[in-house]
């Protein structure tokens, strides 16, 4: 059985928080660059070139590209042959987040008690942690800092099976249209289809952790991703909602089997600062 110490996990999570916030993945940057080539609106071009400058500057200065460094969403794939030693996994992840947000000069945006007190916890913990036990002896940790501007624009709908493909398309388009300029377009659109209520929303979030622009392996879903992207970019919302051709950079669908009587669909939007970083131990 492979042993992994919590000290190692703390260190890795700390670094992933800083890396994700200050050094945007080249997958996203490349799509923004391609978007700039295709954007026709002057405001759209201006916004996209400012966004590209900002990516370069934040990388060079090792500072957060966006002040909303989010709640730290952490996906953990824990191999069943891994033994974590020296402490507990959840506490280690939270300690990593605490150190990453402090040492990286990232904003602490988490409030304790969502309804009554709403008091800032001061260290951006707790993280939102999703753990999956998988075969093997590897530990994969993905950190997806999630800003609220885009998170607030997400939605879930329990469709009837009869509403089918058309129902899914209409719901995704409606969600993006109503979000308008709020989620900092150009956005990445994460769509979760199937499972149950909570499974669909989790799939939509997971879709945002995928390499941006990487298509679904199934040709039917891949075609749906392409069609939705085209339709979204016909909405005219454009970069920052000021009008233009590039409203979304990519649509990512994740699917899961579901019940005979239901068709859950969830949409989770991510802003152009589509931060995600991962490490395998």
């Amino acid at each position: 059985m492979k042993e992994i110490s919590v000290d190692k996990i703390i260190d890795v999570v700390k670094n992933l928080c800083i890396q994700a916030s200050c050094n945007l993945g080249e997958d996203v940057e490349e799509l923004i660059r391609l978007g700039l080539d295709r954007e026709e609106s002057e405001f759209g071009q201006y916004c996209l070139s400012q966004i590209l400058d900002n990516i370069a500057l934040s990388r060079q200065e090792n500072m957060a590209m966006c002040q909303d460094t989010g709640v730290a969403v952490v996906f953990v794939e824990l191999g069943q042959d891994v033994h974590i030693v020296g402490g507990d996994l959840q506490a280690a992840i939270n300690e990593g987040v605490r150190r990453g947000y402090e040492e990286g000069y990232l904003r602490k945006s988490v409030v304790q008690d969502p309804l009554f007190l709403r008091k800032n916890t001061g260290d951006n913990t707790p993280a939102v942690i999703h753990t999956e036990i998988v075969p093997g002896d590897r530990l994969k940790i993905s950190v997806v800092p999630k800003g609220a501007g885009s998170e607030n624009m997400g939605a879930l709908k329990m469709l009837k099976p009869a509403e089918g493909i058309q129902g899914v398309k209409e719901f995704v388009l409606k969600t993006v249209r109503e979000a308008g300029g709020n989620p900092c377009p150009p956005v990445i659109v994460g769509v979760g289809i199937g499972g149950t209520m909570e499974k669909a929303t989790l799939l939509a979030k997971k879709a945002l952790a995928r390499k941006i622009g990487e298509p679904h392996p199934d040709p039917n879903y891949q075609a749906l991703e392409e069609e939705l992207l085209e339709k979204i970019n016909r909405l005219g919302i454009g970069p920052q909602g000021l009008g233009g051709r590039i409203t979304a950079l990519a649509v990512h669908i994740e699917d899961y089997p579901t019940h005979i009587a239901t068709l859950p669909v969830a949409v989770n939007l991510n802003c152009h600062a589509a931060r995600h970083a991962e490490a395998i131990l």
Partner: protein
Amino acid sequence: MAQVKKITTPLKPEQIQDLKAGDRVTITGVIYTGRDAAHKYLAKTLQEGQLLPVDFTDQIIYYVGPCPAKPGQAIGSCGPTTSGRMDAYAPLLIEKGLKGMIGKGPRSPQVIDAMKKYGAVYFAAIGGAGATIARSVKKADVVAYPELGPEAIYRLEVEDFPCIVVIDAQGNDQYKIGVEAYRLAD
């Protein structure tokens, strides 16, 4: 997109009337930050008939919660937050003399009505361009509600802070104009 207009704070009525939706501007002078929690406090203060901790007459509020400054920086990353969450409070502040708001995303009809009635303007900064925007902030001091951390009210001294006028004092809305110009039929 016309040439960039340079404006200074505090805003004068003739300056406000000259600004049109779709203008690119740079702002130089003092602006104040304020977002969700601070707005809630400000509204409560006004409702209780108390004096606000900052005089917003002819001033601009920037909807932002900045990152901490690194050593040698005036401020950390500081791009705009979604303005719509402040819509419930903005008309009250506009009525009390606030003349400008900087944020991102559309505003409610109630806010736009107040802007037309009292002569105020709404600017958009580029959401997510927080590192670039931080370069135009020369000084940042907390002036109210320090207990709110990133949500405290800061007094910022800015130089050539880049913005776009999205809703002007006549109620013209660049979000609507822009999207209508680029929307394609299904």
